[in-house]
């Protein structure tokens, strides 16, 4: 290795003052004799006063490193990064005020968030909760209902609890109107079958009456003071029921005409030509 190459290999140590005495003496002796190495050393010393080029270089190459540094911040604060990454983030924070601000906020959050651990409930909350359990356990406060809930409790207590808590939510469900109309229709059909209210009526009359009954129920639902969504659903249901009954009526008429026609044809077995007249 030439003297110049040896000096270059020791240059950083010489600049940092970390060479041992022998190496430093050799380097300084070489500098005194070698103009090119002296020039190199002067340049190296000058770079200490150079402006910070980091931002400019990053802008022209990879872009700012803030995004990655920010991603690492929570782990950096938790000392959850490996040593190299921890060091890199620390270096970044020394020169990046934005990321430093974010780190300070994260630190402040650590002390402020636990303040939310408990909140004072509204006045009367405790009494309300305890009152609920008085109702749930009127005779024996044994909480042994298992997964099925209050299966060990009297039926009236369970029903009253359900009516207080679950019923209001059931009523507000969007499909409630449809389900109610369906249930009413089933009840109406069963009632008709049980009472024979339409016994002996003509098919046409039967259809008319069924249509009127159903449309009336739908109108009543639509006009009832309920949630807007419920009224709209009921109105649509009424329209659909009307359409359905109309279609049913039309098909029933066609069926009756076809039946009568076939009966007439059976009465005239010799007539080979099909009649085009509708009976």
């Amino acid at each position, binding site marked *: 290795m030439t003297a110049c190459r040896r000096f270059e290999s020791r240059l950083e140590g010489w600049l940092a003052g970390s060479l041992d005495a022998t190496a430093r003496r050799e380097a300084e002796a070489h500098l005194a004799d070698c103009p090119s190495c002296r020039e190199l050393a002067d340049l190296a010393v000058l770079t200490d006063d150079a402006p910070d080029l980091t931002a400019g270089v990053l802008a022209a190459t990879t872009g700012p490193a803030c995004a990655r540094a*920010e*991603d690492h*911040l*929570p*782990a950096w604060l*938790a000392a*959850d990064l490996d040593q190299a990454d921890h060091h890199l983030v620390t270096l970044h924070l020394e020169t990046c005020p934005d990321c430093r*601000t*974010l*780190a*300070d*906020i*994260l*630190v*402040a*959050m*650590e*002390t*402020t*968030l*636990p*303040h*939310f*651990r*408990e*909140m*004072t*409930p*509204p006045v009367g*909350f*405790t009494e*309300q*909760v*305890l009152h*609920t*359990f008085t109702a*749930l*356990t009127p005779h*024996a*406060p*044994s*909480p*042994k*209902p*298992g*997964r099925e*809930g*209050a299966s060990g409790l009297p039926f009236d207590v369970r029903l009253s609890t359900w009516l207080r*808590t679950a019923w209001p*939510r059931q009523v*507000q*469900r*969007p499909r409630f109107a449809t389900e109610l109309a369906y249930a009413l229709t089933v009840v109406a059909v069963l009632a008709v079958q049980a009472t024979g209210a339409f016994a002996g009526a003509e098919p046409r009359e039967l259809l008319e009456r069924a249509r009127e009954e159903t449309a009336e129920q739908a109108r009543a639902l639509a006009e009832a003071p309920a949630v807007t969504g419920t009224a709209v659903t009921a109105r649509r249901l009424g329209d659909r029921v009307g359409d359905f009954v109309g279609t049913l009526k039309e098909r029933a008429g066609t069926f009756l005409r076809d039946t009568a026609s076939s009966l007439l044809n059976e009465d005239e077995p010799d007539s080979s030509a099909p009649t085009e007249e509708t009976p």
Partner: protein
Amino acid sequence: MDPTELIARCRQGDDLAWEALVKTYQGRVYAVAVHYMRDREEARDMAQEIFVRVFHHLDSLEGDRPLLPWLLQIARNACVDRLRRLKVRTPPNPVPVEDGPEIPAAEPSPEEEAITGARERLLYRALGTLAEHYREMIVLKDIQGLKLEEICELLDLPMGTAKSRSHRARLELARAVREIQPDFGAAS
């Protein structure tokens, strides 16, 4: 009283033990409900429903499991169930794309007014801008102080996912705070 003994007495039908349990944990339960529901009235109803669930599931607490994580699990599940039902019931509001992310309200909401301390109010407001799964992580880990292992079990998440979600949640919250008040950290 030791929570284990408290639970044992509650199981035996000790009214006083139950009252003590409610008084001891109502603050935490209500706080969880407030953070999930973000509405005081909803939170009050929710907290009550949570205690009803706790009462009905007293037998399901295994002997070696600590009370608090179990209680928070019930609270969390109840809140998530309620939010799910509310979402089904409430049609989503169409938001124009150009409106961008939610802008924090200048006027404090009733919930914010109930929170003492300007820094706490600001944090509460910033929490409201987070995605639900991030807010949940902040509530469970940074507010209620659950361990990551407990959160993994509660949310059924792998450890790596829970850890990265926790870091991401804190970062997003810090960014939201910086948007509202950049010198939040300096004032501490």
